[in-house]
């Protein structure tokens, strides 16, 4: 199955600033997914990132707040823009790995102060 390297693992950021999270996959994948996990909650899908086209956002998430890049089939970034304390969450990327299910990055724990 695929291996994902996600960076940073954690960060503490000032409100009003932006943070870019990176995910590098060790194989080429068509779709990458970005999730948010608020404290004590389950995972909520933010968007699907396809190479060569704009990301597809789920209801409640917009590109201005969560811009996504997908420059090639092994890499994607998610930016959390103009952060507020409500953005404090764990952010995870994921790829489908065929019959084995989905593989997840180790997550980025973001705290906004």
């Amino acid at each position: 199955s695929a291996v994902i390297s996600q960076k940073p693992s954690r960060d503490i950021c000032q409100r009003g600033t932006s943070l870019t999270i990176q995910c590098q996959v060790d194989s080429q994948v068509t779709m990458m997914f970005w999730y948010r996990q608020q404290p004590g909650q389950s995972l909520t899908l933010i968007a699907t990132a396809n190479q060569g086209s704009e990301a597809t956002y789920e209801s409640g998430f917009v590109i201005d707040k969560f811009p996504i890049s997908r420059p090639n089939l092994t890499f994607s970034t998610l930016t959390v823009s103009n952060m507020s304390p409500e953005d404090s969450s764990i952010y995870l990327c994921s790829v489908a790995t065929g019959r084995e299910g989905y593989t997840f990055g180790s997550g980025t724990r973001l705290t906004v102060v």
Partner: protein
Amino acid sequence: SQQGEEDPQALSIQEGENATMNCSYKTSINNLQWYRQNSGRGLVHLILIRSNEREKHSGRLRVTLDTSKKSSSLLITASRAADTASYFCATVNGNTGKLIFGQGTTLQVKP
């Protein structure tokens, strides 16, 4: 959006006991998957059951699927302290490939 409910939300058992977690979902599915998450870190895929399967085993894990009731259960037998984690069911939209999660069950196994 979440796919459905999981119960219980929290479960505390003694080492050696069995743990059963239930999951319900809303839409038709191609397959249902179970994941484990330790201490808010990345998720680990445990087991996948296809819509035409009713039961599946993997080591100490047993998963059942009832598509008529849109429900699944995960049984962990002879639990260990290392099984302490959050467990999530998730379903895949066959058209979009999106993986949508249930609310999760937090399992504590006391040594």
